[in-house]
């Protein structure tokens, strides 16, 4: 699942800021295909989990109201430079992906 996510994480004043974008269509299931008039099936991320060195720090539960290619950001404490931050996601069609980055 390469190229499906971008993560940046850095420490400033002892706090780690994380910014991430997951590339995903986030279809609500309410939109119609303009040429055929058929509804486009819902396809959106339901769960995202963020782990710092294997310990869960943030869990996201999402609905179709989150924008396409979701961006999100949060802050946490207790990390060191070089620690691993892993973000993994699961969507309503059972697809999933994950990506890791080193905290700088």
């Amino acid at each position: 699942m390469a190229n499906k996510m971008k993560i940046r994480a850095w420490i400033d004043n002892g706090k780690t800021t994380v910014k991430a974008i997951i590339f995903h269509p986030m279809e609500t299931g309410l939109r119609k295909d303009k040429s055929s008039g058929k509804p486009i099936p819902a396809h959106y991320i339901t769960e995202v989990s963020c782990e710092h060195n294997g310990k869960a720090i943030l869990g996201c539960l999402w609905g179709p109201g989150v924008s396409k290619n979701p961006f999100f950001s949060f802050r946490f404490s207790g990390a060191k430079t070089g620690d691993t931050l892993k973000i993994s996601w699961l969507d309503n069609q059972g697809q999933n992906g994950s990506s890791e980055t080193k905290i700088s």
Partner: protein
Amino acid sequence: MLKQRRTFLRAGMTAGTLAVATGAGLLTPRGVLAAWPEKAFKAQKYPAALEALAGSAEATNSDAVKVKAPDIAENGAVVSVSVTTSLPKVENISVFVPVNSFPLSASFEMSDATEGFITARFKMAKTSDVIAVVKADGKLYTAKKSVKVTLGGCGG
């Protein structure tokens, strides 16, 4: 009297056992992802969605919760919203857009390490309030911000 007390104790014990069972199975501990609350995400009205998510629709307005969002959003498909709170022991931050077909947009489960801050981008069908509900120390606190949407972002 005594008999009543026995019954009460027995009832309490059964409830306790149930709680342990659900604790082991469905409900994961704080900081780890809980099961996706389908009922809350499928609810079509704001108070019902909150009740399905948090078990109560009673939330106190609080100055300690701040919602940052644009006054006017030209494109309702991408509205950046930040929720910041200075409350201690934040367990959960949820964002609702009451005019959307499904008001509950996202729910963030916080851990001990995370701060009371979250930013994400949401869809908005039309001009509305964005409501943030923060669960801290077992209580619900809320704040809202009105966002004017010029172009709706939920398809159609």
